[in-house]
């Protein structure tokens, strides 16, 4: 997929480069808007850092993942918990019309 890919390191460098050329009013407003966005980003990042102090370790989420996965019956697994649903096997029944539909032109 063609697009501008900006990773977190490169993003801000790219934006600086695009802004350094202009010295007129339009450029000034653009830089101000960028600055505002960066200041907002700074606040979000500081919030996130604070939140991380109260965040539990990954093992808790791993435990929850394991428990949730094993609780749900899964028709695609060779071995799974019940209850089994007979409708899961409907794909293996012959279609009512024995030839099936082989039309191919739209």
């Amino acid at each position, binding site marked *: 997929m063609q*697009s501008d890919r900006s990773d977190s390191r490169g993003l801000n460098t790219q934006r600086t480069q695009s802004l350094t050329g202009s010295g007129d009013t339009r450029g000034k407003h653009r830089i101000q808007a960028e600055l505002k966005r960066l200041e907002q980003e700074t606040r979000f990042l500081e919030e996130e850092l604070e939140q991380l102090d109260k965040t539990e370790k990954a093992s808790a989420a791993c435990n929850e993942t394991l428990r949730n996965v094993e609780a749900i019956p899964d028709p695609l697994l060779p071995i799974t918990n019940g209850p089994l649903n007979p409708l899961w096997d409907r794909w293996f029944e012959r279609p009512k019309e024995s030839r099936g539909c082989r039309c191919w032109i739209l």
Partner: protein
Amino acid sequence: MSSSVSELKERHAAAIETVNSLRERLKQKRQQLLDVDVAGYSRSQGRAPVSFGPTDLVCCRTLQGHAGKVYSLDWTSERNRIVSASQDGRLIVWNALTSQKTHAIKLPCAWVMTCAFSPTGQSVACGGLDSVCSIFNLNSPTDKDGNLPVSRMLSGHKGYVSCCQYVPDEDTHLITSSGDQTCVLWDITTGLRTSVFGGEFQSGHTADVLSVSISGSNSRMFVSGSCDSTARLWDTRVASRAVRTFHGHEGDVNTVKFFPDGNRFGTGSDDGTCRLFDIRTGHQLQVYYQQHGENEIPHVTSIAFSISGRLLFAGYSNGDCYVWDTLLAKVGHHSGRIGSYHLPFPLQVVLNLGSLQNSHEGRITCLGLSADGSALCTGSWDTNLKELITVMKLKVCQYISVDAQFDSLQNNAGVIQSKLARFGLLEGTGGCSESLGSERLVNLLLNLRFWLTSFCCFLLP
């Protein structure tokens, strides 16, 4: 004025430094909290990887009819129907159980990238390079040309529509992602944007957004994946900023999918990895990566979870489709370009991607699980010309691929018609019971691609 501009530039540079250093600190702090990944934890709890026997998952249907790459597919919530979107400029609605096509919708813009079934199954939506999301009501009467009319066009994006999904339990809202770096929540009844996530005046993705996935357990939450290498979690009530941004990938995030339990989501990227993220803590819980033994790392183009989340199906740009055991991060089964060749552009309702029979020979572009999780459907496109001809020799060809020169088509149309008749492809002589007039044949041929020229070479004396 110039001094205040240069002052601003200095402040700007300083702000960038601050942001980068904060990001680095965040990264370090997160790393310290990653005491174990899902695979490590599962192993410590004595779990063994899922292993598939040769008959555990099988390909049981091939849905043929598209004449171009299948870009996207979606199942209904009532189990058996699928909508698919193809480069041939059509949506097809299938009954996957009977293999019947119930609708073939010619699109106003052929460059479609995504499609979705509404929760009630009464409508389908699609979007693409026209930057518009079009809604079709499947119960509408067709127009005089036999085409289903567009019932609503959702316009407003300033870039391509890469992905769309209806908000569960209602046919009235859907969410789109776009090349204009935003996601939008639409009210279909009015055709208006309810909310725009990201974009010029709000913080959001900084590059094209390629994928969205709405939580099955809390329809106010959705995740998006972008060319800015991040995934973002959004609350539809708060458009001004993402709830959380997930870093880790080193390339475009092509696909995102909520995990069945609603507290995690998976991603697939150009960096060749799939990852599992936890939405409440923001932790990256697992990376799924396997060395493919090639020079170039294949991109992950599409993913889907089985209904429990134990299996992660991942389609790659080199044609492989891996079935990952999400708990043990091992590849349970995979299919490469092995096994018998299959006709191009089919949809396959597969259960086994590792089967040596009837698996895709080409590149898998999209995946989707049925609502009850009992079947996986894959869409693909194939390009191997040689094998195409081989198959045509051995079997009655049930459809022709696309793209050939118009002139040679016209000249050869008559010859081809007689050849096809011999192969039982016309007038219900063997293949379809549907008859095919020469006018339709020429129309079909006009849509053919370059393979047809070789097909002609094969057929002509």
